[in-house]
């Protein structure tokens, strides 16, 4: 009798154990699928040495008094990027390996004066200049078809040396940054406090195609300052606007 009870107890215990295992397995996200709020949801990005960089003033990102989170800073930058006239419809988020996050824009083609191209802005092939002045026509007539490209990134971190290595950036690899990043900032990163030691660094990765059929060259240092890049793309103006 006692032996029979023992068997029944063993079967019940096994059933409970397997049920618990089954439920826990079903509730786990499948391997390789993003979870809900985990930081591991967005890939990690260690920014290489940029063509130029510029620390965005804190007052442009958050209210002078009061606390702010990474999410607030992200919203501020995202809004500035998505506002007209030069909208950046595609941006991606990355986690930084040393803490913080990065926002990366799609590669864009810009004019010699630094303004984004109106036609062929998102093309990685040469596009003729938008404004037809005598000077631009003469330049185009006598000089090679040069294409100027840039990727703008924003780092939000508290690390003093945020760059990984000083290798030259390959344009093809840089284009992939858009495809590999997350489309939203995960909640667990967004909830983190943008403390007094945190700062926002704008980075420019600049490339030049010296002629058609020629590979792009990484420009380091940039021909113009990051502040100038941000001013010409109206991002600085949008960041400076009243919230």
């Amino acid at each position: 009798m006692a032996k029979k009870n023992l068997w029944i107890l063993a079967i019940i215990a096994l059933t409970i154990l397997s049920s618990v295992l089954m439920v826990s397995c079903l509730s786990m996200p499948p391997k390789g699928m993003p979870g809900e709020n985990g930081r591991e949801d967005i890939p990690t990005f260690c920014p290489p040495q940029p063509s130029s960089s510029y620390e965005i003033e804190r007052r442009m990102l958050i209210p002078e008094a009061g606390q702010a989170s990474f999410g607030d800073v992200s919203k501020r930058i995202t809004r500035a990027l998505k506002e007209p006239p030069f909208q950046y419809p595609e941006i991606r988020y990355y986690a930084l390996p040393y803490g913080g996050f990065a926002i990366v824009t799609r590669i864009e083609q810009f004019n010699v004066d630094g303004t984004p191209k109106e036609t062929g802005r998102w093309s990685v092939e040469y596009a003729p200049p938008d404004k037809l002045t005598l000077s631009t026509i003469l330049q185009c007539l006598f000089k090679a078809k040069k294409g100027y490209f840039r990727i703008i990134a924003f780092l939000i971190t508290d690390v003093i040396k945020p760059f990984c290595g000083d290798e030259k950036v390959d344009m093809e690899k840089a284009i992939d940054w858009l495809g590999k990043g997350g489309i939203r900032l995960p909640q667990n990163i967004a909830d983190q406090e943008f403390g007094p030691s945190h700062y926002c660094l704008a980075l420019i990765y600049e490339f030049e195609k010296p002629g058609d059929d020629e590979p792009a060259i990484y420009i380091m240092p940039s021909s113009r300052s990051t502040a100038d890049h941000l001013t010409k793309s109206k991002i600085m103006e949008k960041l400076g606007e009243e919230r």
Partner: protein
Amino acid sequence: MKIAMSRAKKSLATVWTIWFILIFLLFVVQGIWGKYEGKNKEIWAWFLSALMPSVSLIIGIFAADQREKPEKKEHVDIFLYRLAMLFSVCYLFVVSLTILLEWRSGLSTVAYYEMSNLWVGPFQGIVIGVLTYFFRQRGA
């Protein structure tokens, strides 16, 4: 209506020579400024193939005229002369426009000039045909 053959030939030769020199100088300056860096061979090949056959034809005719001077003053139908002049000017204009608008093209320079052979090539054939027909006239 007729026009003196020597005068007609001189007018045509003047138009071709001046236009050829201008385009040639444009190419030289573009080359010096590095516009065609790394692809000079292909671009000059296009330039020579677009202009040299017609220019050579005109030079050849002049050379032949110098060797065997006609005994009497020849005249040619003015319509033929105007036709030859019209085709010449139109062709030279099209070639110039092709060069001047290259920068507006999204194609690579070499691909653009290769593509331009679609309109330059047949047009050139017609122009050479008209010029040859004109120069072969031996009117009274």
